[in-house]
């Protein structure tokens, strides 16, 4: 299982049995005109999506978890059933929509559509449900407005879950080659996974260079994951308990 990563790394340095270990491939990648731009694109898009998803999911999750309003269960059920909709079924009209809105090859085009996926809402609903009502009531008695309750009480108490969701969404978006492939065309707007895939497509790319690219594009997320592993596992477990 893990062999995959060391293999790629080794190959990228030279051959399977390293004869001349060199960082030449990595250097040539770093010297590409847009390398830092691509890295920025990937990180910016993933971070924006992550933060927006966390914010909106917390808002909705709080409403579904703690508030009782007409249509609450029905609307939640509407969100729930979309988990069974295959991405490809709505892909074409979604692509046409993004195109018509002029959002192809833009940051918005990549960041906005994922906001529709309700996974984050389920997660946050589960988390916020565990916050004791007494605390919220106490806040209300103290005269706090709904916004204050949300920002000063709910968010701090749901922080572990929010962080898990953020990491989850960040890494998921970063690796979402499929959606990036559809939306991004301009060379300056590409993301790292796209770049590596393009290297793969070209017949004249050295295998070792390709491996170097693969390593560079995936290593940051792997490191992030190793460092934050606990949060990940927590997020997966909470997400699996359906409301």
């Amino acid at each position, binding site marked *: *299982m*893990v062999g*995959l*990563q060391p*293999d*790629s790394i080794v*190959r990228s340095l030279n051959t*399977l049995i390293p004869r001349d270990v060199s960082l030449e491939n990595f250097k040539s990648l770093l010297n590409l005109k847009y390398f830092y731009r691509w890295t920025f694109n990937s990180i910016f898009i993933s971070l924006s999506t992550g933060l927006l998803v966390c914010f*909106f999911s917390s*808002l*909705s999750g709080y*409403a579904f978890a703690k*508030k009782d*309003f007409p249509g*609450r269960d029905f609307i939640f059920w*509407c969100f729930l059933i*979309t*988990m*069974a*909709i*295959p*991405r*490809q*079924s*709505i*892909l*074409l*009209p*979604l692509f*046409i*929509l993004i195109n018509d809105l002029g959002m192809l090859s833009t940051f918005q085009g990549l960041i*906005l*559509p994922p*906001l*529709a*996926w*309700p996974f984050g*809402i389920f997660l946050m609903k589960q988390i916020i449900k565990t916050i004791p009502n007494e605390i919220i009531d106490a806040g209300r008695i103290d005269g706090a407005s709904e916004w204050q309750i949300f920002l000063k009480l709910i968010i701090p108490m749901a922080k572990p879950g929010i962080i898990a969701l953020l990491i989850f969404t960040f890494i998921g978006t*970063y*690796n979402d*080659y499929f959606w990036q492939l559809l939306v991004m065309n301009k060379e300056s707007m590409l993301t790292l996974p796209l770049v*590596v*895939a393009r290297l*793969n497509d070209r017949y004249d790319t050295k*295998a070792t260079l390709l491996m170097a690219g*693969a*390593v560079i*594009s*995936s290593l940051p*997320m*792997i490191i992030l*994951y*190793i460092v934050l*592993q606990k949060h*990940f*596992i927590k997020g*997966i*477990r909470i997400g*699996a308990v*359906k409301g």
Partner: protein
Amino acid sequence: MNKTLSKQILKNKIAYLFIFPSFLAYIVFLVYPLIRTLIMSLSKYEVRSFTFIGISNYIKLFSDEIFKKAIFNTFLLVIFTVPVVLGLSILIASFIMKKSHRLRSFAMGIFYLPSVTSIVTICIAWKWIYSARNGIFNEFLNLFGIADVNWLGNAVTALPVIITVMAYNMVGSPIILYSAAMGAIPKSYYELADIEGATNFQKLWNITIPLIKPTTLYLTIVLTIGLFQTFVIIKLITGGGPYYATTTISFHLIQMAFLFSKYGIASAIGVVLLVLVAGLTITQFTLLSSEVEY
């Protein structure tokens, strides 16, 4: 508590306001495209206009050999990958249950690693491993005197290759979820079984597996839904071939939509895909949840 009417309305206003952003995105980026897919599937698309032609796209679809092969391949993919993933994860999870906490975390970390690795990287690595001429899988088999096999270019082995890559990719979260579920089983059950002289297999089969059924149900549904949407792995490793051996329904959809610009047909495939997934999900839910208590 005695709430005044105005307070009640205000309270609801806030709730609706809070769910509004998510709901808006949901309508714009999910519901609208869904409806549009349905409409597009019933139309024929020219360059600038479209004409409503009823179900003729569907009729064309069901006489298309490639589409039928795609359905066949998709079902093969699901029927084989889901049990493999579930079986592997249950075995691995139950194996690490008895080990130290540190080893458990380490194992979960290793197995979940593919899920956080860029899928492009995974495909490049696997394509290289299965490569006919200098792939390490063939080199490994050579050690046992087995000749090189063209794993990716052979219509018989291509789909099994995809199945193995999918399984590799998908065991991560099942292992984590099963570990949690198994951890909740009271140790006394196993101790009782030990007293009665049960083998490890019997303990697994009669105690563990029935008690983790809710997780199994959830995973079956989630894995199936995910498998129907496999695209990138197929595109980057086998490109749908050879001779459509690895073309799945969703792969065919994207070919039709973005390669051949046959929007009507592609949308029809999309609807079929949706109906299949929804139908399967409901079926799995009713079949498997009959004995599960929540």
